[in-house]
């Protein structure tokens, strides 16, 4: 008894093409939409105070370390307290509507609830001072903050992304005094700089040990 029409003899071909297309599209879908490049990059929460990095760090040229004081000494770069803001704003724009929350915080002593943009999981240990003191620039991980009206996440901050830099042949470093410079370009003898730096300090980038970051 003939159960199936003639065209069903094409089933193996249809099946193979179908399986291939299904797997291909499924993995492409997960690859794209599941990756931190899609889920995390571009995260730009609205902060309680409409603070503009472009105005302060870019146009007026305030150094990163004026507010993020911990970056050279500790694992945390430090979100500046209200006092840092009021250091200037006691004199400048004292009655600006935008600064209402800052003045309130100054009077009540309750800190402003800034929203954290660059989040690392708790099981990953990251130390700002180690990176900055080795000559890793702010821009390498945070992007060009000096041109951001609202700060957003530029890099995926995934483990693979960390390792890309940790495992690359040439560490992404620069002279220490240029770390906060957003417009630094490598000089002609950059390669010499890197190799002499590595010679002097040794390449201590942790690569093969889980417990360097997952303590």
């Amino acid at each position, binding site marked *: 008894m003939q*159960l199936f029409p003639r065209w069903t003899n094409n089933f193996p071909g249809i099946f193979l093409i179908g399986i291939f297309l299904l797997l291909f599209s499924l993995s492409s879908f997960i690859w794209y939409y599941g990756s931190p490049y899609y889920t995390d990059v571009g995260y730009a929460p609205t902060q309680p105070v409409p603070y503009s990095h472009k105005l302060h760090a870019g146009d007026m040229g305030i150094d990163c370390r004026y507010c993020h004081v911990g970056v050279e000494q500790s694992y945390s770069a430090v979100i500046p307290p209200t006092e840092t803001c009021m250091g200037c704003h006691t004199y400048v724009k004292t009655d600006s509507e935008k600064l209402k929350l800052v003045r309130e915080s100054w009077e009540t002593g309750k800190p402003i609830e800034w929203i954290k943009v660059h989040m690392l999981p708790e099981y990953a240990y990251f130390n700002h001072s180690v990176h900055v003191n080795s000559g890793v620039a702010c821009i390498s991980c945070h992007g060009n903050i000096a041109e951001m009206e609202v700060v957003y996440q530029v890099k*995926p901050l995934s483990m693979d992304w960390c390792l890309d830099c940790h495992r690359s042949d040439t560490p992404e470093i620069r002279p220490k005094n240029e770390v906060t410079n957003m417009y630094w370009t490598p000089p002609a003898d950059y390669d010499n700089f890197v190799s002499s730096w590595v010679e002097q300090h040794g390449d201590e980038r942790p690569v093969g040990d889980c417990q360097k970051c997952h303590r």
Partner: protein
Amino acid sequence: MMNNKIKSKAEIRAEKLLPGNQDFTTLTDDIAGVPEQKKTPIQWWLLFGLALSLLAIFAGSVGFLIWEGTGIWGINNPVFWGWAIINFVWWVGIGHAGTLISAILHLFRQNWRNAINRFAETMTLFAVICALVFPGIHVGRIWVAYWFLPIPNQMGMWPNMRSPLIWDFFAVFTYFTVSLLFWYTGLIPDLATLRDRAKTNLKRKIYGFFALGWRGGNRQWQHYELAYLVLAGISTPLVLSVHSVVSSDFATSVIPGWHTTIFPPYFVAGAIYSGFGMVMTLSIIARKVYNLGHIITLEHLDKMAQIMLLTGCMVGYAYSMEFFVAWYSGNAYESFAFVNRALGPYWWGYWAMIFCNVVVPQFFWFERYRRHIPFLFITSILVNIGMWFERFVIVVITLHRDFMPGAWAMYNPTIFDVSIYIGTFGLFFTGFLLFLRFLPMVSIAEAKLVLPESNPHHGHEE
């Protein structure tokens, strides 16, 4: 004497394995008759209902486990591995008989396997599925279980291929896939039989789809037989490798009681032992419910009992060698670990194991007991209880006495340890009962090979 003709060897053999006057037609009718039954037997419905309710318990417990985490289990410090690994090893062990019967006995041309191989292969499949549940859920965060697989990911991280736990994953995964292919390849001609005998159009189409358009031509059989033979050939080292690899989960650690080279052969023997126990239990039930006493005969049960006797003695030997080596090594920790097994707070687990695995099968030296169906049934269940206790002894009794007496603790399973274990029976029996209902439980094509007239040269023998 009615029949004065001298019987050929093949005829004598066939009479033992397929008693009564059978030919190709009656064999097909008998075996294919089971999935073709109009009315499902009431026993089937009762068992299926029971299996489904156990499956519901399983789904609920695993759901709660995923929600809550592995803290709902009784694992503690120092017993980090509890029922999950016990049950995993137990189910994988049971899953060994299928491929052993199908592959190794096929290579040795043991025709008696033909009545039970399908059965055993199916049991293997569902047992391995039950086993694979445990490594899946024991990670707690089940949504990252894909970390087992070497696939590129956002962490740039790969599994540690030097770790026995990853070997284990590869071994069990390969074993499952190869068993599935082996099972399905064996089913193709039988599905074609069911397709050609089916009464309704829907059944014809479904069986016809899975039969892949099998026509039974010798140009097909030629490649088919070679493929089947090669699958049997490669499954033989595979089945021996799987439990060896499972044993290296333990043996490569430096825990006294685990760190021994006897583990791989001892685990493989135990796996075959428990697998045959399970095949015995299931085939006794099935031949009773479906009146297949003339296809799964006493001869088959006898042969399985002999294999159980052999493997039972092998594990018994391993148990005693462990003690000998512990004493002979002069290692105080090793000696303590074994004395603690037999005389420590969990002495009952150890002696339950010895009784079920070593003492009980000694009755199989006598043909009377090898052919006594109620005795076989009880023994086959006892063997699997014993094999469960063996894993309990290895995992819990070894861990609960750590190197440091300060860390010593007892292990108490919680209700969720029990319910997930009981629940896997639901998973197993749901699948197995569906198989019994819709697929031939004995290979129709291969059962015919036992008949002497299937061999065109049988007249020329002797």
